[in-house]
Protein backbone atom coordinates (compact mmCIF):
# COMPACT_ATOMS: atom_id res chain seq x y z
CA UNK A 1 0.00 0.00 0.00
CA UNK A 2 1.69 3.14 -1.13
CA UNK A 3 -0.92 5.62 0.04
CA UNK A 4 -1.85 6.13 3.69
CA UNK A 5 -4.76 8.39 2.80
CA UNK A 6 -6.90 8.55 -0.31
CA UNK A 7 -9.82 10.88 -0.81
CA UNK A 8 -12.07 10.18 -3.77
CA UNK A 9 -14.39 12.78 -5.19
CA UNK A 10 -15.27 14.34 -1.83
CA UNK A 11 -18.16 16.77 -1.87
CA UNK A 12 -19.58 18.86 0.94
CA UNK A 13 -22.17 21.52 0.24
CA UNK A 14 -23.54 23.97 2.78
CA UNK A 15 -26.69 25.10 1.00
CA UNK A 16 -25.53 27.10 -1.98
CA UNK A 17 -21.92 27.07 -0.86
CA UNK A 18 -19.91 24.28 -2.47
CA UNK A 19 -17.23 24.14 0.22
CA UNK A 20 -15.58 21.00 -1.12
CA UNK A 21 -16.63 20.11 -4.62
CA UNK A 22 -15.10 16.89 -5.88
CA UNK A 23 -11.71 16.84 -4.21
CA UNK A 24 -9.30 13.96 -4.89
CA UNK A 25 -6.02 13.50 -3.11
CA UNK A 26 -3.50 10.87 -2.12
CA UNK A 27 -0.88 11.06 0.59
CA UNK A 28 2.22 8.87 0.69
CA UNK A 29 3.50 7.57 4.00
CA UNK A 30 5.79 9.78 6.04
CA UNK A 31 5.54 12.73 3.73
CA UNK A 32 4.82 16.29 4.82
CA UNK A 33 2.26 17.91 2.57
CA UNK A 34 1.07 21.51 2.62
CA UNK A 35 -2.33 22.62 1.40
CA UNK A 36 -2.52 26.16 0.08
CA UNK A 37 -5.33 28.06 -1.51
CA UNK A 38 -7.26 31.30 -1.19
CA UNK A 39 -9.86 31.81 1.58
CA UNK A 40 -12.93 29.70 0.91
CA UNK A 41 -11.02 27.17 -1.18
CA UNK A 42 -12.28 24.41 1.15
CA UNK A 43 -9.06 23.61 3.01
CA UNK A 44 -10.50 23.47 6.53
CA UNK A 45 -13.63 21.67 5.33
CA UNK A 46 -11.40 19.06 3.73
CA UNK A 47 -9.60 18.49 7.03
CA UNK A 48 -12.95 18.31 8.82
CA UNK A 49 -14.04 15.61 6.39
CA UNK A 50 -10.85 13.61 6.88
CA UNK A 51 -10.99 13.81 10.69
CA UNK A 52 -14.71 13.15 10.94
CA UNK A 53 -15.95 16.51 12.21
CA UNK A 54 -18.10 16.55 9.09
CA UNK A 55 -19.33 13.73 6.86
CA UNK A 56 -19.15 14.27 3.11
CA UNK A 57 -22.27 14.40 0.92
CA UNK A 58 -20.55 12.05 -1.51
CA UNK A 59 -17.12 10.52 -1.88
CA UNK A 60 -14.85 8.35 0.21
CA UNK A 61 -12.10 8.77 2.76
CA UNK A 62 -9.79 5.77 2.78
CA UNK A 63 -7.20 5.56 5.54
CA UNK A 64 -4.68 2.75 5.59
CA UNK A 65 -6.78 0.79 3.11
CA UNK A 66 -9.89 1.14 5.27
CA UNK A 67 -12.97 3.15 4.40
CA UNK A 68 -13.42 5.59 7.31
CA UNK A 69 -15.87 7.95 5.62
CA UNK A 70 -18.54 7.41 8.25
CA UNK A 71 -16.42 6.65 11.33
CA UNK A 72 -16.71 8.94 14.40
CA UNK A 73 -13.83 11.33 15.17
CA UNK A 74 -13.24 9.29 18.30
CA UNK A 75 -12.78 6.08 16.28
CA UNK A 76 -10.45 7.79 13.85
CA UNK A 77 -8.19 8.90 16.72
CA UNK A 78 -7.90 5.26 17.73
CA UNK A 79 -7.07 4.26 14.15
CA UNK A 80 -4.39 6.94 14.05
CA UNK A 81 -5.90 10.08 12.55
CA UNK A 82 -5.47 13.13 14.79
CA UNK A 83 -5.63 16.86 14.24
CA UNK A 84 -4.59 20.12 15.80
CA UNK A 85 -6.71 23.21 15.69
CA UNK A 86 -6.53 26.59 14.02
CA UNK A 87 -7.46 28.26 17.29
CA UNK A 88 -5.41 27.11 20.26
CA UNK A 89 -7.34 24.38 22.03
CA UNK A 90 -5.67 23.31 25.28
CA UNK A 91 -6.45 22.56 28.91
CA UNK A 92 -5.51 26.05 30.05
CA UNK A 93 -5.71 25.46 33.78
CA UNK A 94 -3.43 22.40 33.73
CA UNK A 95 0.33 22.41 33.58
CA UNK A 96 2.06 21.91 30.24
CA UNK A 97 3.27 18.51 31.44
CA UNK A 98 -0.23 17.44 32.51
CA UNK A 99 -1.70 18.45 29.15
CA UNK A 100 0.62 15.97 27.44
CA UNK A 101 0.30 13.37 30.19
CA UNK A 102 -3.49 13.28 29.90
CA UNK A 103 -3.16 12.52 26.19
CA UNK A 104 -0.64 9.76 26.87
CA UNK A 105 -2.74 8.29 29.71
CA UNK A 106 -5.71 8.18 27.36
CA UNK A 107 -3.72 6.41 24.66
CA UNK A 108 -2.24 3.88 27.10
CA UNK A 109 -5.66 3.23 28.61
CA UNK A 110 -4.55 4.35 32.07
CA UNK A 111 -6.94 7.29 32.37
CA UNK A 112 -9.46 5.43 34.53
CA UNK A 113 -7.05 4.48 37.33
CA UNK A 114 -8.06 6.29 40.52
CA UNK A 115 -6.31 4.31 43.25
CA UNK A 116 -2.73 5.15 42.33
CA UNK A 117 -0.82 8.39 41.86
CA UNK A 118 -0.16 9.64 38.35
CA UNK A 119 3.47 10.27 39.30
CA UNK A 120 3.93 6.54 39.85
CA UNK A 121 3.68 6.10 36.11
CA UNK A 122 7.23 7.26 35.48
CA UNK A 123 7.18 6.01 31.90
CA UNK A 124 4.23 8.30 31.13
CA UNK A 125 6.10 11.31 32.51
CA UNK A 126 9.26 10.24 30.67
CA UNK A 127 7.40 9.97 27.39
CA UNK A 128 5.79 13.36 28.01
CA UNK A 129 9.15 14.95 28.77
CA UNK A 130 10.70 13.45 25.68
CA UNK A 131 7.96 14.99 23.56
CA UNK A 132 8.21 18.33 25.39
CA UNK A 133 11.95 18.32 24.82
CA UNK A 134 11.47 17.77 21.10
CA UNK A 135 9.06 20.68 21.06
CA UNK A 136 11.44 22.81 23.11
CA UNK A 137 8.91 23.17 25.91
CA UNK A 138 10.59 21.16 28.66
CA UNK A 139 11.53 24.27 30.66
CA UNK A 140 7.85 25.20 30.83
CA UNK A 141 6.70 21.73 31.95
CA UNK A 142 5.32 22.86 35.31
CA UNK A 143 3.81 26.13 34.16
CA UNK A 144 0.13 26.46 33.44
CA UNK A 145 -0.63 26.12 29.74
CA UNK A 146 -2.42 29.46 29.78
CA UNK A 147 0.77 31.32 30.72
CA UNK A 148 2.70 30.15 27.61
CA UNK A 149 3.47 32.63 24.83
CA UNK A 150 1.30 32.12 21.77
CA UNK A 151 3.88 30.30 19.64
CA UNK A 152 4.50 27.80 22.44
CA UNK A 153 0.76 27.24 22.81
CA UNK A 154 0.58 26.32 19.13
CA UNK A 155 3.46 23.88 19.66
CA UNK A 156 1.76 22.36 22.69
CA UNK A 157 -1.43 21.96 20.68
CA UNK A 158 0.53 19.98 18.07
CA UNK A 159 2.17 18.12 20.96
CA UNK A 160 -1.22 17.03 22.31
CA UNK A 161 -2.07 15.61 18.90
CA UNK A 162 1.32 13.89 18.66
CA UNK A 163 0.94 12.33 22.10
CA UNK A 164 -1.86 10.16 20.71
CA UNK A 165 0.82 8.69 18.39
CA UNK A 166 -1.03 9.31 15.16
CA UNK A 167 -0.08 7.79 11.82
CA UNK A 168 -1.65 10.75 10.07
CA UNK A 169 -1.57 14.22 11.56
CA UNK A 170 -3.66 17.06 10.20
CA UNK A 171 -2.57 20.54 11.17
CA UNK A 172 -4.99 23.38 10.61
CA UNK A 173 -2.76 26.44 10.32
CA UNK A 174 -0.12 25.53 12.89
CA UNK A 175 1.29 29.07 12.75
CA UNK A 176 -1.92 31.10 12.76
CA UNK A 177 -1.62 34.05 15.09
CA UNK A 178 2.14 33.61 15.39
CA UNK A 179 4.14 36.70 14.43
CA UNK A 180 5.85 36.54 11.02
CA UNK A 181 9.23 36.67 12.71
CA UNK A 182 8.53 33.55 14.79
CA UNK A 183 6.64 31.53 12.18
CA UNK A 184 9.59 29.71 10.67
CA UNK A 185 10.90 28.86 14.16
CA UNK A 186 7.59 27.17 15.02
CA UNK A 187 7.50 25.39 11.64
CA UNK A 188 11.10 24.20 12.00
CA UNK A 189 10.23 22.48 15.27
CA UNK A 190 6.95 20.97 14.05
CA UNK A 191 8.43 19.62 10.82
CA UNK A 192 11.49 18.16 12.54
CA UNK A 193 9.32 16.42 15.18
CA UNK A 194 6.87 14.89 12.70
CA UNK A 195 9.75 13.71 10.48
CA UNK A 196 11.56 12.28 13.45
CA UNK A 197 8.41 10.43 14.50
CA UNK A 198 7.68 9.40 10.90
CA UNK A 199 4.18 10.86 11.05
CA UNK A 200 2.49 11.56 7.73
CA UNK A 201 1.43 15.18 7.94
CA UNK A 202 -1.05 17.28 6.05
CA UNK A 203 -1.05 20.94 6.98
CA UNK A 204 -2.94 24.01 5.97
CA UNK A 205 -0.63 26.97 5.78
CA UNK A 206 -1.68 30.48 4.87
CA UNK A 207 1.82 31.78 4.40
CA UNK A 208 2.57 30.56 0.86
CA UNK A 209 6.34 30.81 1.19
CA UNK A 210 6.28 28.73 4.36
CA UNK A 211 3.95 26.19 2.75
CA UNK A 212 6.23 25.75 -0.26
CA UNK A 213 9.43 25.62 1.75
CA UNK A 214 8.26 23.17 4.48
CA UNK A 215 6.10 20.80 2.43
CA UNK A 216 7.78 17.95 0.58
CA UNK A 217 4.57 18.03 -1.46
CA UNK A 218 2.11 20.80 -2.07
CA UNK A 219 -1.59 20.59 -2.79
CA UNK A 220 -3.20 23.70 -4.26
CA UNK A 221 -6.94 24.06 -3.74
CA UNK A 222 -9.32 26.50 -5.30
CA UNK A 223 -13.13 26.61 -5.19
CA UNK A 224 -13.49 23.25 -3.50
CA UNK A 225 -11.25 21.23 -5.79
CA UNK A 226 -7.61 20.25 -5.95
CA UNK A 227 -6.12 22.08 -8.92
CA UNK A 228 -2.52 20.97 -8.57
CA UNK A 229 -0.37 18.58 -6.55
CA UNK A 230 3.31 17.79 -6.68
CA UNK A 231 6.74 18.91 -5.60
CA UNK A 232 6.84 22.58 -4.56
CA UNK A 233 9.17 23.62 -7.41
CA UNK A 234 7.01 22.00 -10.10
CA UNK A 235 3.68 23.18 -8.72
CA UNK A 236 4.84 26.79 -8.70
CA UNK A 237 5.29 26.67 -12.47
CA UNK A 238 1.75 25.48 -13.30
CA UNK A 239 -0.21 28.33 -14.94
CA UNK A 240 -3.36 27.89 -12.79
CA UNK A 241 -1.22 28.14 -9.67
CA UNK A 242 0.60 31.16 -10.98
CA UNK A 243 -2.80 32.69 -11.73
CA UNK A 244 -3.65 32.47 -8.00
CA UNK A 245 -0.55 34.50 -7.28
CA UNK A 246 1.53 31.55 -5.96
CA UNK A 247 4.16 31.64 -8.71
CA UNK A 248 7.81 32.17 -7.93
Amino acid at each position, binding site marked *: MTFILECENLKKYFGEVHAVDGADLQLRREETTSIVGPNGAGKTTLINLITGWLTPDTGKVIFDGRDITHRS*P*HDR*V*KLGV*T*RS*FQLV*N*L*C*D*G*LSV*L*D*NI*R*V*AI*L*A*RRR*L*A*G*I*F*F*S*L*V*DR*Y*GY*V*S*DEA*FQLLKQLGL*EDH*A*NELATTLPHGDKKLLDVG*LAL*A*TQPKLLLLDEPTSGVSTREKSGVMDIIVSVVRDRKVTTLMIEHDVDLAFSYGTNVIVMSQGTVIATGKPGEVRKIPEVVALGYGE
Partner: protein
Amino acid sequence: MVIKIGPSVLRARLPILMIIIILLFIVPLVAPSYQIFLLSYGLLLAITALGYNILFGQTGLLSFGHAAFFGLGAYAPAFLTHYAGIRSLEVWIISSIIFATLVAAVIGYLCVRYTKIYFGLLTLAFSMLFYALLYKFYWVTRGDDGLYVPIPSILGFSIPLSKSAYISGPLYYIIIVTSLVLFAFGWVIYNSPFGKTLQAIRENSARIEFLGIPVKRYKWYAFTLSGFFGGIAGCLFGILNGHVNPMALHWIFSGEIVFMCVLGGHRVFLGPIIGAILFTYLKTYAITLTVYWQIILGSSLIALVLLFPGGIMGWAERLMRKRSQGERKSLDVHT
Protein backbone atom coordinates in the same frame (compact mmCIF):
# COMPACT_ATOMS: atom_id res chain seq x y z
CA MET B 1 14.08 13.88 34.04
CA VAL B 2 11.01 13.06 36.07
CA ILE B 3 9.40 15.62 38.31
CA LYS B 4 7.49 14.17 41.22
CA ILE B 5 4.98 16.74 42.32
CA GLY B 6 2.46 14.95 44.52
CA PRO B 7 4.49 12.80 46.91
CA SER B 8 7.29 15.33 47.47
CA VAL B 9 4.77 17.97 48.48
CA LEU B 10 3.29 15.47 50.89
CA ARG B 11 6.70 14.58 52.33
CA ALA B 12 7.53 18.24 52.92
CA ARG B 13 4.30 18.74 54.85
CA LEU B 14 4.38 15.43 56.70
CA PRO B 15 5.41 16.98 60.07
CA ILE B 16 2.49 19.45 59.98
CA LEU B 17 0.16 16.64 58.98
CA MET B 18 1.35 14.45 61.89
CA ILE B 19 0.85 17.30 64.38
CA ILE B 20 -2.70 17.89 63.14
CA ILE B 21 -3.51 14.17 63.37
CA ILE B 22 -2.12 13.95 66.92
CA LEU B 23 -4.06 17.07 67.92
CA LEU B 24 -7.25 15.57 66.48
CA PHE B 25 -6.73 12.44 68.56
CA ILE B 26 -6.25 14.29 71.86
CA VAL B 27 -9.21 16.64 71.38
CA PRO B 28 -11.65 14.49 73.44
CA LEU B 29 -9.28 14.57 76.42
CA VAL B 30 -9.40 18.35 76.68
CA ALA B 31 -12.45 19.72 74.86
CA PRO B 32 -16.03 19.95 76.14
CA SER B 33 -18.48 17.55 74.50
CA TYR B 34 -20.24 20.30 72.55
CA GLN B 35 -16.94 21.21 70.85
CA ILE B 36 -16.33 17.56 70.02
CA PHE B 37 -19.79 17.35 68.48
CA LEU B 38 -19.11 20.45 66.43
CA LEU B 39 -15.75 19.20 65.19
CA SER B 40 -17.26 15.81 64.31
CA TYR B 41 -20.00 17.54 62.38
CA GLY B 42 -17.42 19.69 60.58
CA LEU B 43 -15.40 16.62 59.61
CA LEU B 44 -18.47 14.85 58.20
CA LEU B 45 -19.28 17.92 56.14
CA ALA B 46 -15.65 17.94 55.03
CA ILE B 47 -16.00 14.36 53.73
CA THR B 48 -19.17 15.37 51.91
CA ALA B 49 -17.65 18.51 50.40
CA LEU B 50 -14.48 16.65 49.40
CA GLY B 51 -16.54 14.04 47.58
CA TYR B 52 -18.73 16.67 46.00
CA ASN B 53 -15.66 18.52 44.81
CA ILE B 54 -14.61 15.52 42.69
CA LEU B 55 -17.62 16.50 40.63
CA PHE B 56 -17.59 20.28 41.07
CA GLY B 57 -13.98 21.41 41.41
CA GLN B 58 -12.29 18.64 39.48
CA THR B 59 -14.74 17.81 36.69
CA GLY B 60 -16.36 21.24 36.53
CA LEU B 61 -19.95 20.04 36.97
CA LEU B 62 -22.02 22.25 39.26
CA SER B 63 -24.60 20.00 40.91
CA PHE B 64 -27.30 21.41 43.18
CA GLY B 65 -28.47 18.07 44.46
CA HIS B 66 -25.60 16.58 46.38
CA ALA B 67 -27.51 16.66 49.68
CA ALA B 68 -29.56 13.73 48.33
CA PHE B 69 -26.68 11.28 48.77
CA PHE B 70 -25.80 12.61 52.21
CA GLY B 71 -29.45 12.43 53.23
CA LEU B 72 -30.04 8.94 51.84
CA GLY B 73 -26.85 7.81 53.58
CA ALA B 74 -28.32 9.18 56.82
CA TYR B 75 -31.71 7.56 56.29
CA ALA B 76 -30.26 4.08 55.70
CA PRO B 77 -29.47 3.42 59.42
CA ALA B 78 -32.83 4.90 60.44
CA PHE B 79 -34.74 2.58 58.10
CA LEU B 80 -32.66 -0.44 59.14
CA THR B 81 -33.37 0.29 62.80
CA HIS B 82 -37.10 0.84 62.36
CA TYR B 83 -37.94 -1.79 59.81
CA ALA B 84 -35.34 -4.52 60.29
CA GLY B 85 -34.20 -3.99 63.86
CA ILE B 86 -30.59 -3.95 62.72
CA ARG B 87 -28.37 -1.85 64.96
CA SER B 88 -24.94 -2.78 63.73
CA LEU B 89 -22.51 -0.04 62.71
CA GLU B 90 -20.85 -2.20 60.03
CA VAL B 91 -24.16 -3.11 58.37
CA TRP B 92 -25.27 0.52 58.54
CA ILE B 93 -22.13 1.89 56.91
CA ILE B 94 -22.14 -0.72 54.16
CA SER B 95 -25.86 -0.17 53.50
CA SER B 96 -25.42 3.60 53.38
CA ILE B 97 -22.56 3.22 50.92
CA ILE B 98 -24.50 0.85 48.67
CA PHE B 99 -27.69 2.92 48.88
CA ALA B 100 -26.10 6.32 48.21
CA THR B 101 -23.68 5.05 45.56
CA LEU B 102 -26.38 3.17 43.67
CA VAL B 103 -28.72 6.14 43.66
CA ALA B 104 -25.84 8.39 42.59
CA ALA B 105 -25.02 5.96 39.77
CA VAL B 106 -28.60 6.01 38.48
CA ILE B 107 -29.11 9.79 38.82
CA GLY B 108 -25.63 10.46 37.47
CA TYR B 109 -26.22 8.26 34.45
CA LEU B 110 -29.18 10.44 33.50
CA CYS B 111 -27.65 13.80 34.45
CA VAL B 112 -24.26 13.61 32.69
CA ARG B 113 -26.08 13.66 29.36
CA TYR B 114 -26.62 17.34 30.02
CA THR B 115 -24.18 20.14 30.70
CA LYS B 116 -24.07 23.46 32.54
CA ILE B 117 -27.39 24.82 33.85
CA TYR B 118 -29.39 21.84 32.57
CA PHE B 119 -27.16 19.50 34.51
CA GLY B 120 -27.48 21.64 37.64
CA LEU B 121 -31.26 21.87 37.44
CA LEU B 122 -31.66 18.16 36.80
CA THR B 123 -29.61 17.28 39.89
CA LEU B 124 -31.68 19.79 41.87
CA ALA B 125 -34.89 18.19 40.64
CA PHE B 126 -33.78 14.66 41.51
CA SER B 127 -32.68 15.62 45.01
CA MET B 128 -35.94 17.46 45.65
CA LEU B 129 -37.80 14.41 44.39
CA PHE B 130 -36.19 12.31 47.12
CA TYR B 131 -36.84 15.10 49.62
CA ALA B 132 -40.52 15.13 48.67
CA LEU B 133 -40.78 11.34 48.93
CA LEU B 134 -39.33 11.34 52.43
CA TYR B 135 -41.43 14.33 53.42
CA LYS B 136 -44.76 13.11 52.08
CA PHE B 137 -44.75 9.37 52.80
CA TYR B 138 -45.46 10.01 56.45
CA TRP B 139 -46.49 6.45 57.32
CA VAL B 140 -43.11 5.13 56.17
CA THR B 141 -40.74 8.00 56.89
CA ARG B 142 -42.61 9.94 59.61
CA GLY B 143 -42.37 13.00 57.34
CA ASP B 144 -40.71 16.06 58.77
CA ASP B 145 -40.73 14.54 62.28
CA GLY B 146 -37.96 12.35 60.94
CA LEU B 147 -36.65 9.11 62.39
CA TYR B 148 -34.65 8.35 65.49
CA VAL B 149 -31.19 6.75 65.14
CA PRO B 150 -29.93 4.85 68.20
CA ILE B 151 -26.35 4.08 69.23
CA PRO B 152 -25.24 1.13 67.07
CA SER B 153 -23.28 -1.90 68.19
CA ILE B 154 -19.74 -2.35 66.92
CA LEU B 155 -18.75 -5.86 65.73
CA GLY B 156 -21.63 -7.26 67.74
CA PHE B 157 -20.74 -5.51 71.00
CA SER B 158 -23.32 -3.04 72.21
CA ILE B 159 -21.94 0.11 73.77
CA PRO B 160 -23.31 0.93 77.23
CA LEU B 161 -22.60 4.64 77.16
CA SER B 162 -24.71 7.75 77.46
CA LYS B 163 -25.26 9.59 74.20
CA SER B 164 -22.84 12.39 75.06
CA ALA B 165 -20.14 9.97 76.28
CA TYR B 166 -20.61 7.99 73.07
CA ILE B 167 -20.26 11.08 70.90
CA SER B 168 -17.13 12.37 72.60
CA GLY B 169 -15.64 8.87 72.86
CA PRO B 170 -16.03 6.02 70.38
CA LEU B 171 -18.00 7.91 67.74
CA TYR B 172 -15.48 10.73 67.63
CA TYR B 173 -12.66 8.28 66.96
CA ILE B 174 -14.69 6.47 64.32
CA ILE B 175 -15.29 9.79 62.60
CA ILE B 176 -11.64 10.83 62.83
CA VAL B 177 -10.37 7.55 61.38
CA THR B 178 -13.02 7.53 58.63
CA SER B 179 -12.24 11.14 57.74
CA LEU B 180 -8.51 10.56 57.56
CA VAL B 181 -8.95 7.44 55.42
CA LEU B 182 -11.34 9.23 53.07
CA PHE B 183 -9.19 12.38 52.91
CA ALA B 184 -6.26 10.17 51.92
CA PHE B 185 -8.43 8.41 49.33
CA GLY B 186 -9.58 11.78 48.02
CA TRP B 187 -5.99 12.95 47.77
CA VAL B 188 -5.01 9.85 45.81
CA ILE B 189 -7.96 10.38 43.45
CA TYR B 190 -6.99 14.03 43.02
CA ASN B 191 -3.47 13.05 41.99
CA SER B 192 -4.36 9.87 40.08
CA PRO B 193 -4.51 9.44 36.30
CA PHE B 194 -8.31 9.51 36.70
CA GLY B 195 -8.15 12.80 38.64
CA LYS B 196 -5.89 14.38 36.03
CA THR B 197 -8.28 13.27 33.31
CA LEU B 198 -11.24 14.79 35.19
CA GLN B 199 -9.35 18.07 35.54
CA ALA B 200 -8.63 17.99 31.82
CA ILE B 201 -12.33 17.40 31.12
CA ARG B 202 -13.12 20.45 33.27
CA GLU B 203 -10.68 22.55 31.26
CA ASN B 204 -11.64 21.44 27.76
CA SER B 205 -14.02 18.51 27.43
CA ALA B 206 -14.27 18.79 23.63
CA ARG B 207 -10.53 18.47 23.13
CA ILE B 208 -10.32 15.58 25.60
CA GLU B 209 -12.99 13.68 23.67
CA PHE B 210 -10.68 13.94 20.67
CA LEU B 211 -7.81 12.48 22.62
CA GLY B 212 -9.88 9.30 22.88
CA ILE B 213 -11.54 9.76 26.32
CA PRO B 214 -15.26 8.92 26.58
CA VAL B 215 -16.08 12.13 28.46
CA LYS B 216 -19.64 11.29 29.51
CA ARG B 217 -18.60 7.99 31.05
CA TYR B 218 -15.88 9.71 33.07
CA LYS B 219 -18.33 12.33 34.30
CA TRP B 220 -20.59 9.49 35.38
CA TYR B 221 -17.76 7.82 37.33
CA ALA B 222 -17.06 11.15 39.06
CA PHE B 223 -20.73 11.55 39.95
CA THR B 224 -20.92 8.06 41.42
CA LEU B 225 -17.73 8.52 43.44
CA SER B 226 -19.03 11.76 44.90
CA GLY B 227 -22.19 9.93 45.97
CA PHE B 228 -20.06 7.31 47.71
CA PHE B 229 -18.37 9.95 49.89
CA GLY B 230 -21.74 11.56 50.66
CA GLY B 231 -23.23 8.21 51.69
CA ILE B 232 -20.57 7.44 54.29
CA ALA B 233 -20.68 10.97 55.73
CA GLY B 234 -24.48 10.84 55.85
CA CYS B 235 -24.48 7.51 57.72
CA LEU B 236 -22.17 8.83 60.43
CA PHE B 237 -24.14 12.08 60.58
CA GLY B 238 -27.31 10.12 61.31
CA ILE B 239 -25.59 8.43 64.23
CA LEU B 240 -24.00 11.66 65.48
CA ASN B 241 -27.25 13.60 65.27
CA GLY B 242 -29.31 10.70 66.66
CA HIS B 243 -32.10 11.73 64.36
CA VAL B 244 -32.68 12.32 60.66
CA ASN B 245 -35.27 14.39 58.86
CA PRO B 246 -35.84 15.34 55.21
CA MET B 247 -34.00 18.66 55.61
CA ALA B 248 -30.78 16.65 55.15
CA LEU B 249 -31.79 16.26 51.49
CA HIS B 250 -33.05 19.78 50.92
CA TRP B 251 -31.54 21.92 48.19
CA ILE B 252 -30.55 24.49 50.81
CA PHE B 253 -28.09 21.97 52.17
CA SER B 254 -26.91 21.20 48.61
CA GLY B 255 -26.26 24.90 48.23
CA GLU B 256 -24.32 24.94 51.49
CA ILE B 257 -22.07 22.17 50.17
CA VAL B 258 -21.32 24.30 47.11
CA PHE B 259 -20.66 27.24 49.44
CA MET B 260 -18.14 25.18 51.46
CA CYS B 261 -16.19 24.31 48.31
CA VAL B 262 -16.13 27.90 47.09
CA LEU B 263 -15.22 29.17 50.55
CA GLY B 264 -12.24 26.85 50.85
CA GLY B 265 -11.30 26.94 47.17
CA HIS B 266 -12.74 24.37 44.80
CA ARG B 267 -9.66 24.13 42.60
CA VAL B 268 -7.42 23.07 45.48
CA PHE B 269 -7.46 19.65 47.11
CA LEU B 270 -7.65 20.98 50.68
CA GLY B 271 -10.21 23.65 49.75
CA PRO B 272 -13.44 21.74 50.47
CA ILE B 273 -12.05 20.30 53.74
CA ILE B 274 -11.01 23.70 55.09
CA GLY B 275 -14.18 25.28 53.68
CA ALA B 276 -16.49 22.74 55.33
CA ILE B 277 -14.90 23.02 58.76
CA LEU B 278 -14.80 26.81 58.58
CA PHE B 279 -18.42 26.85 57.42
CA THR B 280 -19.49 24.73 60.39
CA TYR B 281 -17.99 27.17 62.89
CA LEU B 282 -19.06 30.24 60.93
CA LYS B 283 -22.67 29.08 60.80
CA THR B 284 -22.78 27.89 64.41
CA TYR B 285 -21.40 31.11 65.83
CA ALA B 286 -23.33 33.32 63.42
CA ILE B 287 -26.54 31.67 64.67
CA THR B 288 -25.62 32.31 68.32
CA LEU B 289 -24.71 35.92 67.55
CA THR B 290 -27.84 36.97 65.69
CA VAL B 291 -31.10 35.65 64.30
CA TYR B 292 -30.06 37.27 61.03
CA TRP B 293 -27.21 34.81 60.66
CA GLN B 294 -27.91 34.32 56.97
CA ILE B 295 -26.84 37.91 56.43
CA ILE B 296 -23.41 37.10 57.84
CA LEU B 297 -23.07 34.03 55.61
CA GLY B 298 -24.43 35.85 52.59
CA SER B 299 -22.20 38.87 52.90
CA SER B 300 -19.17 36.67 53.51
CA LEU B 301 -20.00 34.81 50.29
CA ILE B 302 -20.20 38.10 48.37
CA ALA B 303 -16.92 39.29 49.85
CA LEU B 304 -15.35 35.94 49.04
CA VAL B 305 -16.39 35.87 45.41
CA LEU B 306 -15.31 39.47 44.86
CA LEU B 307 -12.05 39.44 46.82
CA PHE B 308 -10.88 35.81 46.83
CA PRO B 309 -12.41 34.12 43.80
CA GLY B 310 -10.11 31.13 44.30
CA GLY B 311 -11.32 30.62 47.88
CA ILE B 312 -9.12 30.63 50.97
CA MET B 313 -6.85 27.79 49.90
CA GLY B 314 -6.71 29.07 46.32
CA TRP B 315 -5.54 32.40 47.67
CA ALA B 316 -2.98 30.74 49.94
CA GLU B 317 -1.67 28.63 47.08
CA ARG B 318 -1.26 31.67 44.86
CA LEU B 319 0.65 33.47 47.61
CA MET B 320 2.98 30.49 47.98
CA ARG B 321 3.52 30.18 44.24
CA LYS B 322 4.33 33.88 44.02
CA ARG B 323 6.82 33.56 46.84
CA SER B 324 8.56 30.56 45.28
CA GLN B 325 8.67 32.32 41.92
CA GLY B 326 10.11 35.39 43.63
CA GLU B 327 12.83 33.22 45.15
CA ARG B 328 13.58 31.66 41.77
CA LYS B 329 13.85 35.09 40.19
CA SER B 330 16.22 36.38 42.84
CA LEU B 331 18.33 33.23 42.32
CA ASP B 332 18.49 33.97 38.61
CA VAL B 333 19.79 37.45 39.37
CA HIS B 334 22.58 36.11 41.58
CA THR B 335 23.81 33.43 39.20
